[in-house]
């Protein structure tokens, strides 16, 4: 390896890099699969794992044909730009794999991605909820199908560029999920759905590093994507315009169920205006309501049956309780009757202290102080410090 040893030992999170059990993987090496997205994070993971003596195989999931909803026939003449089905990301991942000289394969996961992520995403919006496709993808594609493929091709585990930490806890005999050291990049919120079986075969080598350090390491390895800008968009929604995506997807499916037009009403039911689809709205939204009033108005609730969007004052967005269903528990087998935690209700939310009450298949969360815009379709994730206890999906009725 020609790169200079400029990196301090601190930049090598040895514990996560040594894959395999106990006596340690020798240079002959166990095989680790790296889910490569073509970005700087997963590329750095591949480089670090290889440097630590593992045999590495790069896998990229091809999830969505970017030309699909743009009306382009896949056999028709292509524009030179974006001719690859998933933009330039597969091209970048391939370049990184070539640079590192690791075997690399593209997997066609388009149909399962549509079934497990895109369709639920669309159905959620049509039902007046605000979904998180990345979590669905993590639970049902990345750490399910991709992990299975990784094991099928002979790898013991799957590593990704997520900012989070996994560790085995002897005391509880469970795999724990922790927040990343770089709290500004922490992605543990999106990973609450991982089972013990999934976590036991998952490596997050970047969880102990800052983004700044990752860029430095990528530079040290001279990765061709070291300077590549961050992508913020939902990968299958062009230009982040999800309402247009929904419209064209429903059209393509020939679906009867359009997220049709409806009324915008005030708290007391007074009709203030109309809208052309509930999927254009999310709780707490203030922009693009198209109503001129003296005081600012916010979306308070969305009723998929009547297609009504209820608006009101910011102070009416606050609520102290919510019900959470389809739970997954990581740090414990299941919930005690009642426990304390900090609860995060959206990616950008600062976890708020709350008491959680077990309630059959669900739990009820009582926040110490009211929280703004508890949004149906988003996840509630329970933390004990930086440990993810578990989480689930929030309901419409706060109970």
């Amino acid at each position, binding site marked *: 390896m020609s790169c200079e040893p400029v990196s301090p030992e601190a930049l090598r999170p040895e514990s996560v890099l040594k894959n395999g059990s106990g006596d340690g993987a020798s240079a002959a090496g166990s*095989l680790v699969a790296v889910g490569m997205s073509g970005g700087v994070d997963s590329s750095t993971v591949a480089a670090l794992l290889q440097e630590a003596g593992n045999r590495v*195989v790069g896998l990229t999931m*091809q999830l969505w044909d970017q030309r699909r909803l743009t009306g382009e026939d896949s*056999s*028709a003449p292509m524009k030179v730009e974006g001719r*690859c*089905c998933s933009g330039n990301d*597969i091209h970048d991942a*391939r370049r990184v794999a070539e640079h590192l000289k690791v*075997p690399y*394969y*593209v*997997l*066609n996961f388009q149909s399962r991605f549509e079934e497990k992520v895109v369709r639920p995403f669309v159905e959620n919006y049509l039902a007046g909820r605000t979904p998180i496709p990345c979590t669905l993808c993590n639970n049902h594609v990345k750490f*399910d*199908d991709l*992990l*299975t*493929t990784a*094991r*099928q*091709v*002979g790898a013991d585990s799957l590593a990704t560029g997520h900012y989070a930490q996994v560790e085995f806890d002897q005391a509880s005999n469970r795999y724990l999920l922790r927040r990343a050291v770089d709290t500004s990049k922490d992605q543990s919120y999106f990973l609450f759905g991982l*089972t013990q*079986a*999934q976590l036991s075969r998952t490596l997050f080598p970047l969880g102990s590093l800052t983004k700044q350090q990752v860029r430095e390491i990528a530079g040290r390895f001279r990765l061709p994507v070291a300077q590549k800008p961050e992508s913020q968009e939902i990968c299958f929604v062009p230009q982040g315009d999800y309402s247009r995506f929904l419209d064209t997807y429903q059209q393509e499916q020939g679906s009867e169920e359009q997220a049709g037009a409806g009324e915008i009403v005030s708290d007391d039911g007074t009709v203030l205006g109309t809208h052309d689809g509930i999927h254009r709205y999310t709780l707490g939204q203030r922009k693009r309501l198209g109503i001129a009033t003296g005081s600012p108005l916010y979306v308070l609730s969305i009723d998929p049956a009547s297609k009504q969007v209820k608006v009101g004052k910011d102070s009416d967005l606050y609520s102290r309780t919510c019900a959470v269903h389809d739970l997954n528990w990581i740090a414990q087998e299941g919930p005690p009757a009642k426990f304390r935690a900090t609860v995060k209700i959206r990616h950008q939310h600062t976890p708020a202290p709350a008491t959680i009450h077990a309630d059959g298949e669900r739990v009820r969360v009582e926040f110490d102080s009211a929280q703004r815009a508890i949004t149906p379709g988003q996840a509630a994730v329970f933390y004990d410090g930086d440990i993810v206890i578990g989480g689930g999906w929030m309901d419409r009725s706060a109970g």
Partner: protein
Amino acid sequence: MRLYVDNNATTPVADQVLGAMLPYLREGYGNPASIHQFGQQARAAVEQARAQVAALLNCKPEEIVFTSGGTESDNLAILGVVRAGSGRKRHVITSAIEHHAVLHTCRALERQGVTVSYIPVDATGLVDPDQVRRALRPETSLITIMHANNETGAIEPITEIAEIAREAGVRMHTDAVQSTGKILVHPQEMGVDLLSLSAHKFSGPKGAGALYVREALALEPMIYGGHNEGEPRPGTENVAGIVGLGAAASLALEEMDSGRVRIRELRDSLEESILSRFEDVGVNGPALRGPESDALRMPNTSNLYFDRVEGESLVIALDLGGVACSTGSACSSGTVEPSHVLMALGHARERAKSSIRFSLGRTHRREDNQFLLEQLTSVVRRLRALSPQTSVAETRS
């Protein structure tokens, strides 16, 4: 150890082919169109290669048009015939299992207002000539049906179909990219007007191919240039590539009789071992083995399905274990779609996605079969143990 059993995708260049080409990448750099002796030497090399290809096809040298490969040959044949025809001749007949070089050319014609009939195949991947006959229309200008299928190795009844074309006064093209150089391919005896071939499928270099064009047949060129107006394929010749094609043709002719039988016996032995060693496996396409399979299936091809095995994972796992094979036709993006060929055989999506193709090359040895079987055994066992159909409960709990 690394074993290459993906020879329907491409083949290694034979030593004698490389040896023949090298002088034309060095001192023999003349342009065949030039008057001087550099040019004359290059022209002589091109003409010798033309004679070598003609010898392989048992046709006249002037019936050989050099191209950049199979895709260009297919395009030139199909577009060349349709565009040279009258405005009323706007119908083409092809099959559902053609290579994309033919299928996508037909789709392009459809966008330009030409009607295309896609003839289905039976469960072994064979076209029924009667169905071709029934698809004929007064405005049909061309029938294009492949000689041997790249995925299953099925050999289509081209002679019978060509007979139908001749009776109807319709041009007949066959994509013989997979068969040329491996089995006897004689366009005149088959009765076809046009035939595509590619050097890199039979130990020649990539970027060199040819189109057989029956004497006196008019083709509209796809690109224009060159000295003689109306040349079907103008442009300075790829001299080294053409020389390589010629050398590969000579080598193929020389090895045809012995090589064909040797490869078929190795393929049969491999296939029999796999079928007896594993449960729930089977052959896609014509399943015959032995000498009686010669007329129906390419001697080097074995397309197999393994129940409860993801073909994509199988190919990757075998590659990591040193065995290079394929799930079907290679795709430019390197990803895998369920094969349109296996789907056309009427197989379920699941079976199409559980299939892989071994295609043996001229240097394949008996011990290579042994290595392949060892790798396959450990990989298939692992894949079946981890199959989503058997491990759903384990992963989700």
